[in-house]
């Protein structure tokens, strides 16, 4: 169970400037007052255009940096207070998911399993179980050096899930995957959501509407660092008064933009 309460984050970005003139600093509000509830046994989607603040939010959830304001709790553990306890309860596939090219897929996964506190035998058993779930038995003992995009993604996902976490956080996991691999991933996530798969709490970010529409039980629509709408797919369609999800997305994400700008100006 993941509970995000009113988090904000702003960055200072350096712009142009020259050798003699110091560049003026600009404050970028990456996330502004985002709240989100992701209970167990549900796939919660974070949908938004590029630059909406999805990755920043998920990186704060992973404890890579602290939110300026607000709280993040994972299974009632405050991420900023006890980051290591919180991380042990999460499996995170971030936007950076590099593998060690000289290690095999199996070794990559076992390494993280050991760091998560699994003993050698359990870690290897987990590799077998995950390989079956993600259909990656063939690549287990190959070095990650020559992996295709999809093989890399599967290995990174298995690595994130090796300690069988109750909470799964995926940042754009379908990026670069072909149709078949995307379908496979979807199946795997549905299994993990189901009671047989452990009724995991899954948070899934994407900028692809179709993905979110097919997979997510609950969608949080993000634009310009804010949550502009949330609900199930039918609820969002109804809210926007559209029959196609894409139209609803554009209307909700960008339609309010002018309105927001006006608010900001006022």
């Amino acid at each position: 169970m993941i509970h995000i309460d009113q988090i904000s984050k702003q960055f200072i970005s350096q712009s142009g400037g020259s050798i003699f003139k110091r560049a003026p600093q600009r404050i970028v509000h990456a996330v502004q007052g985002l709240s989100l509830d992701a209970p167990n046994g549900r796939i919660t989607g974070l949908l938004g255009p590029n630059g909406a603040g999805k990755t920043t939010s998920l990186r704060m959830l992973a404890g890579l940096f602290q939110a300026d304001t607000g709280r993040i709790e994972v299974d009632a553990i405050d991420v900023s207070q006890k980051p290591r306890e919180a991380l042990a309860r999460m499996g995170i596939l971030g936007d950076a998911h590099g593998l060690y090219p000289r290690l095999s897929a199996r070794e990559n996964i076992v390494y993280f399993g050991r760091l998560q506190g699994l003993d050698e035998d359990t870690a290897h058993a987990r590799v077998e179980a995950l390989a079956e779930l993600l259909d990656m038995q063939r690549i287990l003992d190959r070095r990650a050096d020559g992996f295709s995009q999809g093989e890399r993604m599967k290995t990174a996902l298995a690595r994130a899930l090796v300690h069988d976490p109750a909470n799964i956080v995926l940042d754009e996991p379908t990026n670069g995957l072909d149709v078949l691999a995307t379908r496979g991933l979807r199946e795997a996530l549905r299994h993990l959501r189901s009671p047989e798969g452990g009724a995991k709490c899954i948070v899934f970010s994407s900028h692809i509407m179709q993905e979110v529409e097919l997979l997510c039980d609950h969608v949080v629509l993000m634009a310009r660092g804010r949550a502009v709408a949330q609900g199930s797919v039918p609820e969002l369609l109804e809210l926007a008064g559209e029959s196609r999800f894409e139209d609803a997305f554009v209307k909700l994400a960008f339609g309010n933009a002018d309105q927001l700008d006006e608010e900001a100006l006022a």
Partner: protein
Amino acid sequence: MSSISPKPLSFFGHFKVVLGKEIIDALRDRRTLLRLLIPAVLMGPLMLAALSGLMASFETQAEKREITVQGLEYAPTLKNYLERQTYTIKAAPADYEAQLRSAKLHEAVLVVGKDFETELRTGERPTLEVVSDSANQRASISARAVQRLLRSFNQERAGLSLALRGVSAELLVPVDVQDRDLASAQARASQITGIVPMFMIMAVLYGALTAALDSTAGERERGSLEPLLMNPSPHFALVLGKWGAVALLGMAVATLSNISFIPAQLLIQSDSLQAMFQFGWSEVLRGLAIQLPLAAGVGALLMAVAVRSKTFKEAQASSTLVMTVMSLSPMLGLFNPGGEAPWYYWVPGLAQNTLMMQMLKGEALSVARVLPSVLACAVMAAVSLWFVTRSMRQAVAR
């Protein structure tokens, strides 16, 4: 499937897992490892062998008692003297000047004028030319021997003339000058073997380099640092594990480089150098005691330099400064021989070089001298590792 229960690892547990993975990872990078290992391990011994070859050729030249002369037929008296000194006389080739210039001829040439004998008899100070080329190192060294020989010829002639006039030859040398060299055989050899510590220090640097860059900047470039930090591991344990692997590799290459000097002694052609350069197992062990702290300190320093870089390439550029300063620090000793100041022992790199030189000279290593270098390396490692931990956290927080 969900029946597993991870037990949080201890700090040491995290350290061990990371250390094991980093060692395997570094050893699998065979191509890079070999490319660094070959020069690190072979360069020193090969240089030593080449230098000893040069020395051996000087020695044989001195032993040969040969002299190259042009126009000796005009100087029977000189010829008689040379033969009495048991010198073998060789006629100079016609184009000796060109040959000396192009370093084809390795001996200086003595040129005798046509009127030598008559001028000598009438006391007109005939001229003898010793021709060499100062750019031709071997020829100019042999020129010194020829000059020495001619000086004693002069002395003999002068002595004979004085004796004929009833004057003691000792009047010409009122003072008796004698040389006394205090250097031990090993200290003499250290003029040649002074390059050895430099190669050993380079071996330490090269051994640690790739692993240090790969485990910091490489990790950032691959995008694997972020997932690594999403494990519930204390960041300092991760850094310590990485550093352990880097330091061990530096130490392994240093050990190989030290041991490689033992068979290298068999390649030394010069007998006197071989007698002087004694590098046995006890030198290997003492050398390692000096170099291993350096491997640990430099490994951490290289990691600290590399961790700020986003790519491996950038890290290589910034590590060049460390590599250059460290491997050139022996130069300070070469420019300022014998001028070892107490602060030398506190500067990593320079301290190890100074200590190694002393060991090769056959001086005893005292704890008071070794301890500062160990302490300096320990402080360098501690500060660097703290910096790496801090920078790693910052690197993912943007």
